[in-house]
């Protein structure tokens, strides 16, 4: 149960304050400001003072805070905060102090709609957009019949879909997006390599279509089932609420009635047979106490027809580095003293291509004896039409009463953002 909901800016000023229950006064916000915002040493997202618990999530320059006095469901509270953040992002494009201040009327409407008396209510973005509107999302004047439709949708068994959707061209876009996590030891052993994937779908389909979704033929969805050599194994998968979980549990079919528009159909995780698109071989040597020499090689380990884009390597330098001299044949490399890293950007890396950076960082002498912690090299990149797990969409069937033809598009993307780490 969430008793109160607040949004603070970085200075601890209250931007939004909504009390759902009566066990607090507004002054409770001051307590949070004193205890968390002005306290530099907060090391837990939940703070309990006396019998009052504050849950906070930091996003950009805001604190999204929920307060409760009961033994609340902590997972639910955080999920709720993140849902709110997502709703704001979808409504205003971003969430920060400015957008909250500009839209505070809508935000009050939203937080009243998605939570009643501390219990979260329907928070499907598409449904909300039908009856809570900003200038940018205009819906016609609400007439009674239409609003009954809205309420039926908001509470119905398929709360995520209106009944009367109509499109001239029936299309469905499927994006398979894989986030790859890697940590590699200094000796080149893979310590951990796994894939967090999600399948994003945009459905523009008429009526109430029944969809069936098929992945690889050799797909093992439960690791403990017998695996078959090179099969794609998913350790776990979870689905949008439209997917019939019972069907999946019994027969492993993914069938659903999709929401209208964009939604995340499925999320999955895979740890076996992960193909690493970029191979990094670092060699870093400290020459005496005044220099560090780097030779970093990146090799693209995939089909020549594909290419990695927006490759950014962040190579840490010691804290006492004064300057760094970098030589690269491909891309651009620059020393960023404020972050203590050498940033090497490669706009495009063809499959099979290999490039090398050599750099020397000059150090000043320091009095501290602390050895350099050597944080890992961090690599960000994107590879289109490549899945690290090997997952492929085999088919997407759409059945509808009117039996129309539909066009389906599939895209694959593998990317890494702050999770592809190589130690040296």
């Amino acid at each position: 149960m969430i008793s109160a909901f607040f949004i603070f800016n970085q200075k601890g000023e209250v931007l939004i304050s909504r009390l759902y229950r009566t066990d607090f006064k507004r002054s409770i916000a001051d307590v949070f400001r004193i205890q968390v915002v002005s306290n530099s040493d907060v090391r837990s997202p939940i703070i309990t003072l006396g019998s009052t618990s504050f849950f906070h999530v930091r996003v950009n320059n805001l604190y999204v805070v929920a307060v409760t006095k009961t033994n609340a469901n902590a997972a639910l509270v955080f999920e709720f905060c993140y849902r709110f953040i997502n709703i704001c992002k979808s409504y205003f494009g971003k969430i920060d102090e400015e957008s909250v201040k500009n839209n505070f009327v809508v935000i009050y409407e939203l937080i009243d709609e998605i939570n009643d008396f501390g219990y979260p209510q329907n928070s499907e973005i598409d449904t909300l957009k039908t009856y809570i509107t900003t200038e940018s999302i205009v819906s016609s004047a609400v007439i009674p019949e239409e609003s009954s439709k809205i309420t039926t949708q908001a509470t119905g068994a398929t709360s995520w879909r209106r009944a009367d959707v109509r499109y001239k061209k029936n299309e469905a876009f499927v994006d398979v997006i894989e986030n790859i996590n890697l940590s590699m030891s200094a000796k080149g052993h893979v310590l951990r390599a796994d894939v967090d994937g999600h399948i994003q779908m945009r459905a523009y389909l008429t009526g109430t279509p029944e969809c069936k979704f098929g992945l690889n033929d050799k797909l093992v969805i439960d690791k403990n089932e017998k695996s078959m050599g090179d099969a794609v194994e998913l350790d776990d998968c979870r689905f949008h609420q439209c997917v019939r979980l019972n069907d999946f549990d019994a027969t492993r079919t993914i069938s659903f009635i999709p929401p209208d528009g964009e939604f995340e159909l499925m999320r999955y995780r895979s740890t076996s047979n992960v193909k690493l698109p970029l191979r990094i071989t670092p060699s870093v040597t400290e020459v005496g106490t005044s220099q560090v020499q780097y030779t970093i090689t990146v090799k693209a380990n995939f089909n020549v027809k594909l290419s990695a884009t927006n490759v950014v390597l962040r190579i840490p330098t010691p804290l006492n580095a004064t300057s760094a001299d970098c030589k690269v044949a491909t891309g651009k490399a620059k020393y960023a003293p404020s972050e203590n890293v050498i940033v090497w950007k490669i706009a495009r890396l063809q499959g099979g291509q290999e490039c090398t950076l050599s750099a020397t960082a000059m150090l000043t002498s320091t009095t501290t004896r602390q050895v350099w912690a050597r944080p890992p090299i961090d690599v960000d990149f994107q590879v289109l039409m490549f899945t690290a797990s090997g997952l492929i969409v085999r088919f997407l069937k759409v059945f509808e009463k009117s039996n129309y033809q539909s066009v389906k598009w599939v895209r694959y993307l593998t990317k890494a953002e702050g999770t592809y780490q190589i130690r040296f």
Partner: protein
Amino acid sequence: MQTDDLEQKKLVYLYLMNYAKTQPELVILAVNTFVKDTADPNPLVRALAIRTMGCLRAEKIIDYLSDPLRACLEDKDAYVRKTAALCVAKLYDLKPELVIDPDNGFLDMLRNMISDSNPMVVANTVAALTDIHNAAMSQPGASPSDPGYFEITSAILGKLLIALNECSEWGRVAILNALARYVVHDEKESEHICERVVPQFQHVNGSVVLAAVKVIMIHMRGVYREDLLKQLVRKMAPPLVTLLSSPPEVQWVALRNINLLLQKRPEILANEMRVFFCKYNDPLYVKVEKLDIMVRLASENNVDALLSELKEYASEVDVDFVRKSVKAIGQTAVKIDSAAERCVNVLLELIATRVSYVVQEAVVVMKDIFRKYPSTYEGTIPILCSNLDELDEPEAKASLIWIIGEYANTIDNADELLGIFVDTFVEESYPVQLQTLTAVVKLFLKKPDSSQGIVQKVLNTATKDCDSPDVRDRAYIYWRLLSMDPAAAKAVVLAHRPPISIPRTTVPPALLEELLGEVGTLASVYHKPAETFIGKGRIGADAVRKAGDLGEDQFSAQKALQTVVAGQQAENLLDFDDSTSLEGQPSGLAATQVLAQTPAAAGLLAGTSRNPLDDLVSIFGGGGPLAPTTPAVFGGGAFGGMGLASAPPTPAVGQTPTAAQPQQEDLLGLF
């Protein structure tokens, strides 16, 4: 208010909600419009009106609320019904008699709504009934055996299981919570519930997954079929691991719960240690929790990978995290015999870095390893001793002194080394003094010839110049032992110590069972029973004992405690907010945590004496008599709090008697 513009209406309503409490007589003017709106043809308006009326909280409104509410509960539109269901809970919060009164029939209407055709209505009804039920149960005078207002019968169970698959994510959590409360009649029923709930593991919302885990953990107790049990445990693992790719806060909640689950069923994630490896940019609270879980999962198969990870962490920047990593190496050594040597080697490498806090922590850890594997790693002692000058923290010093004392006969210059500490005896902190004292006596017992002088000196200093009664007492005891009967002294001081091991659980079994029934909630995050921090005024001495056994390494809880102590002033603010319900509530988190740290204070709480002075004496006199259980919560919180806030004991004794009376009320109010 009578505008047709929905958005404008909402704003006006919001304004009314905020000012109803201060200006009830003005709100009454708006009642007519509200009542009219509850009959509006537009369901959105009807729902909005009933939702807002419930929030107005003005006594006078209530009389006008009953009729529209009853109508809305039977509205043809599900959206209105679901809003009205929660409104009943709001009404109960405001005026319980009205809801309970059978003439009004609200409770019966709610119970009937569990059979509603719309799953969202069912979910909200369940939420409302649970809310009312819990509020009623937490009233003083409610007995736990009373079925309350929301008893879940097998008929209701069936309806809930059906609604579970169809309603929204938040509704699922509400229904799963209700399922968790259901008391099963036989094994078949347990199996049935488990089978129906398992598919929820695949839900994208982490709170649904954890709520499902909770239901399974509870109803698994009634399942005896081996294959089904195995299957359930097997299915539980992947979703738990997947929670680790959620945002850090959710991750943290999941990790705390995984930690609990592992204490009950260590086999769940036996092969998954790698997913708990810390990422460099994880927030600290996530890292620390992962560390704990990794040690829990350590086994002979994965110990090498674990050690190389831990070594890596020990070179990171954050001091706290580095210390925990070093500690984790020690725990691994104690846990897995065959890996002890490798652990020791890693520790020696870390000591060689000569980073002050790493060395200190490593020394502390080495002490544990010496305890677990006596006379195995004596070869490392010279290396440890060579770092003597580096140590400036009491715990590290005390550990090294203990090691020297223990191996006095194999260290040639033990008397010299101890001599350094004897010379600075009075400046050291008390734990170091105690350790020095014991170590010198051990040295004397092992090498009586060469250490006559030093033992004389230390006993003299300790009895004459030391202001800690503990140190003086111990010195006197040793002195007398040595002078009366050296053989007895040997038997006492050099006694064989029981071997140590890493406890499999950090919470006592009974509490663990209770917490597993609360997976996902704050209680499971703090690893404490809910009463300790929601302060319903029902903490018995037993509960406090249980909580007192909690492990020391509970970083977050400790942190929370520190915040509590530091922020007493702020808390005043909290409780002035709520003058009605808090009176006489004894202890929150603070009290129990304090109790965990000062055993004497536990005596105080459990003790029957209510004279504050007596109690204080027993706090500071060390080892007060542990009188049996009376839930004498009276002064416990207050004095416990003070004991901690003023760490050096002597000034506190002086200040308390005068402060006791006025502060007592203040502090009691705090918790």
